């Protein structure tokens, strides 16, 4: 908010005191500086577009690698991942990935490990494919492809790993380099983990 708008805000309010628009602008600035980035609202889960998701992995648009990808905000790479379902993860529910706040990594892969150690791959979609190209994903950070909880997800707690990388990685490349203890899947990668409960 510039100096002129501060004055006109006060004049329109009839008081030479901090106006509502000034307070709003100050709070926005303070929150931007001090509070964690707002995560994409889970309200996105009800976007009509998501209703188009098919049974398992559904690529909604062709993934065209872009040479213009640049890190969003700051110089330090950052990797964040939130995973969840709109109303609890039950059979038929859509598991949605939110990577808002990620910067400095172009590709994203994810898999879950069940309590028995069995891995369920989400991205890449198959053994020959590579992970999701984040440079062509919506700015909201919510991936435009989701996973429908199917019979392969027995009820229980799953540890979901997100692998962020600078290079496109196949499942086999990730398997070979993945080390959950160090939080790495090789040079130029970052592993983020969270838990999802399927009921």
């Amino acid at each position, binding site marked *: *908010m510039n*100096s*002129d*708008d*501060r*004055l*006109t*805000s*006060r*004049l*329109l*309010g*009839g008081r*030479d*005191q*901090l*106006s*509502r*628009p*000034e*307070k*709003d602008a*100050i*709070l926005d*600035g*303070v*929150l931007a*500086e*001090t*509070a*964690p980035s*707002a995560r994409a609202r889970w309200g996105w889960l009800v976007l009509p577009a998501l209703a188009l998701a098919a049974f398992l992995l559904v690529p909604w648009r062709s993934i065209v690698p872009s040479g213009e990808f640049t890190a969003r905000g700051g110089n330090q790479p950052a990797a964040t991942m939130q995973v969840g379902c709109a109303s609890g993860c039950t059979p038929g529910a859509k598991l949605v990935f939110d990577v808002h706040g990620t910067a400095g990594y172009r590709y994203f892969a994810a898999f879950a490990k069940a309590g028995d150690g069995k891995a369920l791959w989400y991205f890449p979609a198959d053994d020959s494919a590579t992970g999701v190209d984040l440079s062509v994903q919506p700015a909201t950070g919510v991936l435009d492809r989701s996973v429908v909880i199917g019979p392969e997800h027995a009820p229980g707690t799953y540890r979901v790993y997100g692998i962020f990388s600078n290079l496109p990685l196949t499942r086999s490349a990730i398997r070979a380099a993945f080390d959950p203890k160090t939080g790495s899947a090789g040079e130029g990668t970052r592993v983020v983990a969270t838990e999802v409960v399927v009921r």
Partner: protein
Amino acid sequence: MTIFANDRELLDRFRRGDRAALAAVFEHYVDQVATLARRGFTIESSGHVYVRGANRDDEYELVQETFAKAFATQARLAYDGLSPYRPYLLRITKNLMIDRYRAQQKDARTIAVDMTELDALQPAAEEPVDVDWNRLAAATAEYVATLGPEARELVRRRFEEGASQDKIAEALGWTRRKVRTVEADVHKGLRSWLKQRGLSGG
């Protein structure tokens, strides 16, 4: 009473950096911080030093800087939830103002204030007077009278009553974009109106 009294949940959310909790704390205290910034205060122990209240732009910056410091992660985590929060916030503002005072005074007297005295310092009793305000306010009233009903309704809700853009959009059945657009147009129109009359905020 501090806003966190008997509200452990708010304190926990505040410490976590929950944006809604931070906004609630901000709303609760912002006017008190702004009043102090605007009016200034006098430090008797340092030889009746009057730390002058800030002008509009500096008031804005002081309020923002105060809350930015208070809401920083370490500050949030360090707050015990029991100590009164208002004196803590105002202490930040006072220190910022004393720092500015020192920077502006070429022959600044030494200001030595301990925390107890700092907390006891009260804002000056009187609001600062802008000699141009009455003329600007009169011209603004004339301008508002020329507005159409929609813009006038926005002025009433947004500026006079202090409603958020979201609330106004909801109440009037407008889109948020429309609220923003009308608000921006009102600002622009008033700036132009004042300029045509040789008035400015100087």
